[in-house]
Each structure stands twice: as structure tokens, then as C-alpha cells.
């Protein structure tokens, strides 16, 4: 205690140098802890983009494709899943709930997603459910609920009438003029891709496309048929070399050529859309071979299905909550092995982690830089302590004469550097949180990115502990010198 108070008073005596030393350590701690804290925070909120969903199921495709197209709305989905298949899986005893997702339309660059009330009931991000800032979920087939960013950017209010365009991204095709939607809900901000999407009912999507087909606003069709369904080319890697054009028309290739011998198909689905499906299946089956010369057949269903990858009786993907988590992997295998329709089921947590790995490498670079700044901060402390020693020889001699042991001198100096390191670390942490709370608002507004202000994680604590320990160790160097000189100086240090 005596030593600590001595050390503190001595540091205060050299206030400017001490303050600068603390500041330089603090800044490096800020960088190191800040980087780690923000990284962990972003990772968590990234991992929290989707929660509670055990499996995401899409048409056969890559894991990332399924994840990106459903959760992040970025890649184009790979084809679709027939309603019948969906209904069958929905009835699976291991499955507790499902959320259907129908993609492929957009509104002024924002995705339009067809789903059901199950989405609002079961979808979770960061363990929160989707809630509304205003209004509620779409129920009628002209209802639409819009995400926070959509409302903000486009300045939409409740009751706004909007027209949905076919296709996604910048390139949209025909607009479904004949079937305008009305905003019935504005979803509270989620800081996830939900903010940048519009939600309508499956029936709404269907109605829109039916209108389209019957009377509709000039399908920019035939060429669109080839490209628009974006997903088409991505479909089913191995399935059948040439199905590109064929995909759109009604899921023809959805049955894998090899696996076709489908007793499954014979058995199948009870629900009403069912009858339509097997027909497709078979049709498609025949096509697969002859698809190359698409053109002849084109009108056959070209009229019928037009340019849609989201066929009216198809959805793009569905989310699954299992009865018990334990069944997830078994269920995933079962789905991936489905012979009726080639599916890809992914575990979102695993896929997110995989995706994050890519980001991880950049982190390492940042962390290395941060570590070096800590080293520089400590080196700065060493320099300042060491160079102050010459001026303090007298002080050390006095302390020795007055009863301080050499070990006391060592302890004093080590304590001083330790105190500087502790103060630096504390100030650094304070700066991190000050910085975060200052940056949080602007970053949210500008980038729609949620920087959670979170408690220090174990990694951060470990860094802090290392820095403080290093601080004490750094003090040993001048302490050793002071120890030596206080012995050599005896009672008459040259001043």
C-alpha cells in the first residue's frame, strides 16, 4: 500500500509523461480490444441473422447458394420446390413448423418475398421475432408488409399502393401492373436483410402471376424466359447437362434423371395442387432428353408458365423448425436424399459459420496490426520509464538511505509501469465503449449495421490481462537498472 501510494505520487509528479504513456497504451488497447469487440459483435449479429431455424431447404444447389438466396437475398435461387413436395415435408413427423419462401420478384430493387403468416410466427433473428412498427402481417392477396429500409428509402407509408416487378436486381422485367399491392405493415427495424425486403402472401404472388398470364401486361416474355428466372442456369449441377432453358418451364428437370424411377411419385401428395405436379414431373422427364431443341416445345408451356421460375404452385425454399434439435441432421440427410425432388437442406448456423470463415482472414491481418500497436505502446512506456531513471537516481538513493530495500526499489518501479499499464488498459476500454456508443447511431443510419455494445468477452479480457502483465514485466527493465545503480551509487549519486 505504501509502495502503491508512492508509485502513484511519483507518477503524478511526472504527470505529463505519465499521461502520455497511459494515452499511448490506451490507444493501442482501444485498437486491439475495439477490433476484437466489434468483430465479435458483428460476428454475433451476423450469426444472429437467422435463429431458431434448424434447416433451410431449397432446390438442389450449393450450400452458399441456398443460404445467400434465402437469408441474405443475394444469390439467385436455384429453381423451386413443388408445393406438393413442400406439403409432404411439412407433414413429416420430425418437423414442427415450416415457413415457405417464394422469391423472384422485386420492387424497385428490393426483394419481394411470398410467404405465409408462419414467417412472422416462427422466423427469428438474434432470438427476436419479426414485429411491426406499424400495421401487421399481410393476409389478403393484395397486402404487403415492408421492411424498415424499404419504408425509409422509398418513403412509403401505410396504405401506399405499389407494383411488383418480375425479376430481381436492377434488371426487372414485366411489371405486374394489373395486381397492385397495398402496404398494410411496416416491419420494425431488424438490422438484417429483412429490412430490405417486402413480404406478401403466397396467394398474393399466385394471384399476381395468374393475372399476368391471363391478360397481362405484355410479358417481355420469350427472351426473359431464358434469363429472367435467374436461377435457371444455376440449377442442379449434375442433374442434366442442358436443362437451362428447361428449368423455368415448370420444374421439368426437378426430377433427377437417374432417380426418376419414382415410386415416390406414384404414391404422392394429397393436397390439391398435387395432381398438377406429377404431370409436370413426367413431362419434364421426357423433356430432359429433347430439351436442346427447346423451341418447338416452347409454346407448349411457354404460354402456360411464361417466364416464371416461381411457378404458381412452386415455392423457392422453406425454413424448417424440428420437433427436437437432435433430429436435425437426420432430417437433413433425409431431405438431401429425397428421390422425389432433388433438394438441398442446409443447417443455417453451420452455413453462416462457413461464410464467416471467409471474413476471418481479414480479421487476422487486423489483429496483427493491433498487436503491433500494443507492442509500440509498451515500448513507449519502457522508453519513458527508462529515460526518467537517470533523473531519479537521487530519489532512489534517498529511498535506500531511508530504509528502502533494493527489492523495494524494484517493486516501486515495476508497480509504476504496472499502474500505467492498468490505467492505459482501463482508459482504452473506456475509449472503446465511448467510441462504440458514439459510432453506433451513425453506423446504424448510414449502413444499417447493428454494432452491438457488448460486455468484454473472454478474448478481450485475455488481451487486457496480457497487456497488464506485459506492463509489469516491462517495468522490470528499468527496475533492474535502478536496483543496480542504487547499489553502486551508494550514498552519493552523481547529480
Amino acid at each position, binding site marked *: 500500500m*505504501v509502495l502503491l501510494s*508512492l508509485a502513484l*505520487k*511519483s507518477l*503524478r*509528479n511526472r504527470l505529463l509523461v505519465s499521461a502520455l504513456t497511459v494515452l499511448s497504451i490506451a490507444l493501442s488497447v482501444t485498437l486491439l480490444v475495439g477490433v476484437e469487440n466489434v468483430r465479435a459483435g458483428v460476428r454475433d449479429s451476423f450469426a444472429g441473422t437467422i435463429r431458431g431455424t434448424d434447416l433451410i431447404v431449397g432446390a438442389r444447389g450449393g450450400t452458399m447458394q441456398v443460404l445467400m438466396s434465402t437469408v441474405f437475398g443475394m444469390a439467385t435461387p436455384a429453381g423451386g420446390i413443388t408445393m406438393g413436395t413442400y406439403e409432404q415435408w411439412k407433414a413429416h413427423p420430425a418437423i414442427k413448423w415450416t415457413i415457405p419462401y417464394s422469391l423472384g420478384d422485386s420492387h424497385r430493387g428490393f426483394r419481394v418475398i411470398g410467404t405465409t403468416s408462419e414467417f412472422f410466427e416462427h422466423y427469428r433473428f438474434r432470438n427476436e421475432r419479426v414485429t411491426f412498427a406499424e400495421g401487421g402481417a399481410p393476409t389478403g392477396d393484395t397486402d404487403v408488409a415492408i421492411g424498415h429500409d424499404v419504408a425509409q428509402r422509398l418513403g412509403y407509408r401505410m396504405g401506399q399502393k405499389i407494383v411488383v416487378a418480375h425479376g430481381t436486381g436492377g434488371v426487372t422485367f414485366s411489371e405486374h401492373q394489373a395486381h397492385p399491392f397495398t402496404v398494410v405493415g411496416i416491419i420494425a427495424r431488424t438490422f438484417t436483410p429483412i429490412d430490405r425486403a417486402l413480404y406478401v402472401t403466397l396467394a398474393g404472388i399466385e394471384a399476381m402471376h395468374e393475372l399476368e398470364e391471363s391478360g397481362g401486361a405484355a410479358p417481355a416474355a420469350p427472351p426473359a424466359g431464358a434469363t429472367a428466372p435467374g436461377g435457371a442456369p444455376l440449377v442442379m449441377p449434375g442433374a442434366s447437362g442442358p436443362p437451362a432453358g428447361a428449368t423455368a418451364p415448370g420444374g421439368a428437370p426437378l426430377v433427377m434423371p437417374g432417380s426418376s424411377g419414382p415410386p415416390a411419385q406414384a404414391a404422392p401428395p394429397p393436397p390439391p395442387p398435387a395432381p398438377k405436379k406429377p404431370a409436370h414431373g413426367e413431362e419434364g422427364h421426357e423433356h430432359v432428353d429433347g430439351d436442346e431443341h427447346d423451341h418447338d416445345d416452347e409454346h407448349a408451356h411457354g404460354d402456360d408458365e411464361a417466364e416464371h421460375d416461381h411457378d404458381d404452385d412452386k415455392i423457392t425454399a422453406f425454413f424448417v423448425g424440428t420437433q427436437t434439435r437432435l433430429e436435425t441432421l437426420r432430417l437433413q440427410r433425409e431431405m438431401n436424399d429425397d428421390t422425389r425432388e432433388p433438394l438441398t437442406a442446409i443447417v443455417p448456423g453451420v452455413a453462416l459459420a462457413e461464410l464467416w470463415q471467409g471474413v476471418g482472414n481479414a480479421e487476422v491481418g487486423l489483429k496483427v496490426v493491433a498487436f503491433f500497436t500494443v507492442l509500440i505502446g509498451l515500448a513507449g512506456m519502457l522508453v519513458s520509464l527508462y529515460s526518467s531513471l537517470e533523473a531519479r537516481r*537521487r*530519489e532512489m*538513493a*534517498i*529511498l*535506500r*538511505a*531511508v*530504509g*528502502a*530495500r*533494493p*527489492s*523495494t526499489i524494484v517493486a516501486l518501479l515495476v508497480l509504476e509501469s504496472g499502474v500505467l499499464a492498468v490505467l492505459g488498459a482501463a482508459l482504452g476500454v473506456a475509449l472503446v465503449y465511448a467510441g462504440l456508443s458514439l459510432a453506433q447511431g451513425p453506423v446504424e443510419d448510414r449502413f444499417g449495421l447493428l454494432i452491438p455494445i457488448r460486455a468484454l468477452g473472454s478474448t478481450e479480457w485475455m488481451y487486457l490481462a496480457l497487456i497488464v502483465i506485459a506492463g509489469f514485466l516491462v517495468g522490470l527493465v528499468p527496475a533492474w537498472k535502478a536496483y543496480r545503480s542504487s547499489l553502486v551509487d*551508494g*550514498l*552519493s549519486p552523481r*547529480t
Partner: protein
Amino acid sequence: MSTIHADAPAIRLADVRFGYRPGQQVLDIPALEIARGARVFLYGPSGSGKTTLLGLIAGVLAGGTGRVEVLGTDLARLGGSARDAFRAQHLGYIFQMFNLIPYLSVRDNILLPTRLDAQRAARLRGQSPAQAATELAEGLDILSLLDQPVTELSVGQQQRVAAARALIGYPELVVADEPTSALDADRREAFLRLLFASCERVGATLVFVSHDQALAPLFSQRVSLPDINRAARPAAA
């Protein structure tokens, strides 16, 4: 702990040889004895080894040969840390100048020995450290300065603070290395008188180093270092 022999002289040196470097001989003292309660004036020209001798007596310097007995304890027999403990307990030391820790107040400077060493604190004879400091400050006429930063004191005041610090905890031996060299003649005498009175009050033996012969008559015993030091060569002026 080292036992103090009440009847032993305060200091006894026998065949002490000391040099800072091999081959160098700063001190070579066949014999020196200083009685308990004496007020000794130790003088000699600059560079004659006065500070070196004090260093040996205080146990700060080690490595010489011969016996250095302080209060009946042979310092050479003690290990380094035991010497430190011995000094902390039984000795008060006053430097020529710059005696004080600049970042401590007057009071804290005076209390420093009791804070750094529990044994020294235990020698306060029932007084609290604060009481002891107040009493010493009163005797040395610095009572009103107790709460001031030492950087605001005159040199004479600083030396009195240093004396108070050397005397706290009733040390048997007080060693002063030219504490008055920065004072003018009047202040020098005033300081000495206060110092003597305080030493008497705590019962301490005083070894006072100076090359200022004018002060010599005030002391009970005078020792010329060149006279007792065989290594004394008129080297530096």
C-alpha cells in the same frame, strides 16, 4: 534480528580497507571508535573519503575488509538484506542537499522511514507516527510547513525536514553528510543547534561530516579523516 549491545560503542572500526575498484584504496583505517551519545565532527578535504566512510557505516557500501561494528553489530557479518534492515531500523541519514522526495509533502517525507520499515515504526515509543512527526517538526521549527510540498521550501527548511526524517523512530545513530554546506553561517549554527537538541532528545549519536572547520568547536569529538586514514594521499584538492 540483529541485537543491539547497549554497552557497545556506537561505532568501532578495525583494519577497515575499502576501494570502489580492485586496486583502488580509498580508505585504510586501522581503528576508530565513537562512543554512544557523542556528537562527532568528521572532517577532511574533498575526496578524502568522508562519504565513503559513512557509506560503510550505514551498510550501503559493502565489499571492504576489516570490521565495521555499528552499535555492537558487525555489518560484514550481515547479509545484504539484513544490513538494509539494520539501517532502516537504527540509522538516520541526512544528505548534503536534495534530501527529499520531491513528490511527497513535508509530513510524508518525515514519515517515510516509518512507512518503509515496520520495525522503525515500532520504535516510536507509543507515539503515533503523526504525533512523532509533529513533535520533531516542532523541535526543528518546521511545524507550520508540515503540509506543504517540499519543492516550496528553502534549503535550510529542507535540511530541517531531512533532520526530522532522520530522527523519527529514535534511531541510535544519525549520520549527516555535509547537511549545512548550502546554508549561510547564521543558518548553519541555528540548524546545528536544533539538530543537537533533537539528537539529545531522542538519545542519538551524531556523526556529522563537514569540511567547515568553523563548526568544529560545537562538537564533543572531532575526527580528521586524513589523520586516521592511511590511504589518504593528497590526491584531489
